[in-house]
């Protein structure tokens, strides 16, 4: 029977079952959508199969593949499958998901660089092991022709390897020298080249000492440090790109033929775009048609939505709440507030980076020191031996090899890799290489309120004060609206077991509220001004039944999970906590009292916030700023180190050093502890490296260093530095 089947590749039983090969063949087909979703909460084997099975069960999805390391899933689907649909599916499965723009993720480029270094590392490791083994024979006393044979074989392995593997160092060193500077790569390249060149000369002269193994292990350990460094940066970079890609900029343009979804880049001044209720305003413009309320909290920090009608000016980033709006574009491309955001960020980046990292400070002392020391050894021995260049050069090379910053090259990357890996698991992304070092020095923490300490979603607070009859009417009206206050009230009333009253003719009056008829009377639920009520100091919506006096429903912003723990833990660590918000005094005072924050400021303008943060900095404090809105961007850049949640606006996320990936604020306090530990480990590593040098340098200077001693000192210091860094993981 089996003979009747057509032959199939035996190594791929799955190909026989699934049309994987067909899918591959269609990969270039333009009729296919490739979607990329970020899944910040997946963590286990169960999650992988749940997500893949859930997505594969969707009609139109051809295949879904989770990458757990990068916490994202790539989906190949029919062109009519949208990311929003898949996000809803994942939400039902219990996973938070965000759309990523595959075009903006140049992951392949960083991937290639990473693989390139890994390849060089593998070649160096292979060659090092072989030459070490060959050297064992020499160290244990091989002499004459045998020693020469082993040396020649070593040279044959080492020289091509160095030519291939050490290229990144040579290139960097050449770049630095061409710019008349000194960096870490100059002593590294010099040591590798001198060691290899001198060893080759010794071998041709049948000399006793060849440093091929030292040159190779130097290359290997330093490449390992380089690779770790690259990986941490690549993860941070791709994640930063990923976050920039979170909001895929599209707009609904109204044309003669109807509505059309276009990218923001294609819009021109004068175009009319439609903004649906619940959507973010994509451009700067003026409302031409429609009435609604808009939420400006991301830009100004106000928690109360504002009225918007024809003629109101809107900015990119605001959220339209109740009615559809038509907006005439007033600024597109370079003039839009999007571009102004980019300017803000560019300004931020030039103002930052005044901080010199520990590694740079070490290198600045180290690089000239190494050169001077080996030059000193060379001249000293030249004088001492009466002009024996070969001996003097031998000793100078030994000094250069032994002092070479092998352990120093590993000291910082090993620690930052371990620390950022640990924080990534807790949902924090370190975007800047020196952020950990700066975070460790923080003594003052400044929080923004709306969107940072709160989720930006309201919560009804005084349901218990109202009679049941009013609550039933309010629920019936609120259920008919998508406005956040109405949705919050409806949700709270339903949870309290309230049944909606029989209100007929419910309709939304965009920009004002909801209106209906109940028991022959007009009932209204909405803004204070619309109902003839005096607005209070809290966020509120009002209900009026017939001609009766309006009653007030108050709301407070719901607290972000972990906010209380984070504030408490930061205070327990002895840090001063401040709250600076652009919101009105009432909600800010309530929030400060709730969290026990004594220093708070309400109604702060963006420039105000930045000025206060800068004033704290000038007073000698190291300020950590936590914020999410456009109004925080300047303050985030003015702070010593800054954190923003993943829900923050692009500009704020770009301006901050650390991004919180989940909704929880609690990891913040732990991050401060981890950062302190990491800085301590870095300093310990420098001490270890310095100790090895202190022992080894005098030996080398006195001319007692053999290739064996060099190999031992180098491997031992590198390994102890790496092990010390790994202690951070637990």
């Amino acid at each position, binding site marked *: 029977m089996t003979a009747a089947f057509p032959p199939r590749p035996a190594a791929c039983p799955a190909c026989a079952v699934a049309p994987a090969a067909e899918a591959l063949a269609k990969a270039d087909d333009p009729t296919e959508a490739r979607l990329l979703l970020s899944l910040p909460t997946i963590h286990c*084997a169960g999650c992988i*199969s749940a997500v893949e099975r859930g997505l594969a069960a969707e009609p139109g999805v051809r295949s879904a593949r989770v*990458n*757990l390391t990068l916490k994202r899933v790539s989906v190949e689907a029919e062109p009519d499958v949208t990311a929003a649909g898949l996000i809803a599916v994942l939400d039902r499965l219990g996973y938070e998901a965000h759309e990523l723009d595959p075009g903006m993720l140049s992951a392949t480029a960083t991937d290639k660089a990473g693989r390139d270094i890994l390849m060089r590392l593998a*070649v160096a490791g*292979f060659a090092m092991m072989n030459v070490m083994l060959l050297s064992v024979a020499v160290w244990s006393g091989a002499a004459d022709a045998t020693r020469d044979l082993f040396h020649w074989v070593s040279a044959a392995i080492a020289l091509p390897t160095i030519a291939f593997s050490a290229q990144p160092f040579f290139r960097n060193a050449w770049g630095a020298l061409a710019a008349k500077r000194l960096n870490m790569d100059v002593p590294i390249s010099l040591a590798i080249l001198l060691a290899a060149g001198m060893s080759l000369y010794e071998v041709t002269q049948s000399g006793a000492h060849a440093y091929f193994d030292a040159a190779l292990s130097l290359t290997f350990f330093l490449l390992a440090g380089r690779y770790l460094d690259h990986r941490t940066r690549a993860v941070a970079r791709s994640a930063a790109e990923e976050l920039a890609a979170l909001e895929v900029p599209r707009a609904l343009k109204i044309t003669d033929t109807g509505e059309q979804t276009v990218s923001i880049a294609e819009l021109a001044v004068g175009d009319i775009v439609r903004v649906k209720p619940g959507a973010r305003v994509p451009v700067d413009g003026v409302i031409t048609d429609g009435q609604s309320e808009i939420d400006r909290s991301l830009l100004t920090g106000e928690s109360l939505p504002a009225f918007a009608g024809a003629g109101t000016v809107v900015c990119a980033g605001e959220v339209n709440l109740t009615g559809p709006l038509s907006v005439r574009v007033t600024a597109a491309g370079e003039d839009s507030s999007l571009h102004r955001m980019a300017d803000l960020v560019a300004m931020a980046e030039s103002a930052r980076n005044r901080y010199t990292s520990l590694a740079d400070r070490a290198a600045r002392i180290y690089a000239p020191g190494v050169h001077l020391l080996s030059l000193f050894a060379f001249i000293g021995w030249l004088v001492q031996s009466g002009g024996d260049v070969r001996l003097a050069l031998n000793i100078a090379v030994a000094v250069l090899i032994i002092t070479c910053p092998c352990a120093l090259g590993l000291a910082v990357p090993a620690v930052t890799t371990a620390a950022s890996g640990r924080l990534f698991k807790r949902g924090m992304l370190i975007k800047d290489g020196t952020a950990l070092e700066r975070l460790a020095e923080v003594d003052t923490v400044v929080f923004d309120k709306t969107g940072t300490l709160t989720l930006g979603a309201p919560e009804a607070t005084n349901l218990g004060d109202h009679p049941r009859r009013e609550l039933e009417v309010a629920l019936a009206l609120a259920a008919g609206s998508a406005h956040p206050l109405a949705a919050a009230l409806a949700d709270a009333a339903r949870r309290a077991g309230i049944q909606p009253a029989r209100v007929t003719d419910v309709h939304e009056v965009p920009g004002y509220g909801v209106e209906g008829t109940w028991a022959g009377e007009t009932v209204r639920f909405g803004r204070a001004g619309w109902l003839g009520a005096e607005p209070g100091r809290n966020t509120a919506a009002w209900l009026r039944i017939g001609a009766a006096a309006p009653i007030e429903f108050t709301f407070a912003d719901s607290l972000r999970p972990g906010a209380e723990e984070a504030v408490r833990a930061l205070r327990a660590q002895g840090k001063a906590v401040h709250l600076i918000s652009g919101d009105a005094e009432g909600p800010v005072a309530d929030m400060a009292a709730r969290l026990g924050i004594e220093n708070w400021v309400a109604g702060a303008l963006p420039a105000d916030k930045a000025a206060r943060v800068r004033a704290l900095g000038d007073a000698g404090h190291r300020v950590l700023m936590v914020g999410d809105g456009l109004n925080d961007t300047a303050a985030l850049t003015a702070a010593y180190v800054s954190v923003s949640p993943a829900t923050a606006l692009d500009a704020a996320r770009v301006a901050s050093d650390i991004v919180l990936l989940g909704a929880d604020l609690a990891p913040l306090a732990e991050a401060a502890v981890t950062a302190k530990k990491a800085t301590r480990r870095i300093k310990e590593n420098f001490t270890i490296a310095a100790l090895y040098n202190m022992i080894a340098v005098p030996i080398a200077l006195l001319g007692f260093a053999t290739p064996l001693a060099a190999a031992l000192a180098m491997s031992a210091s590198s390994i102890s530095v790496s092990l010390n860094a790994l202690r951070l993981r637990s």
Partner: protein
Amino acid sequence: MQILVYLIPISLFLGGLGLAAFFWALRSRQFDDPEGDSRRILSDDWDDQPRP
């Protein structure tokens, strides 16, 4: 000692075999998702959509 003439090339060849295997693994993208792959092996789902 003549045996070294054979042994050294043989040992280098065997080491080179390991290096070639590593290159193959690198090029066939086996290091793209180390964490996911280490968990996937424990899942008892029939993986009918293997990575291309």
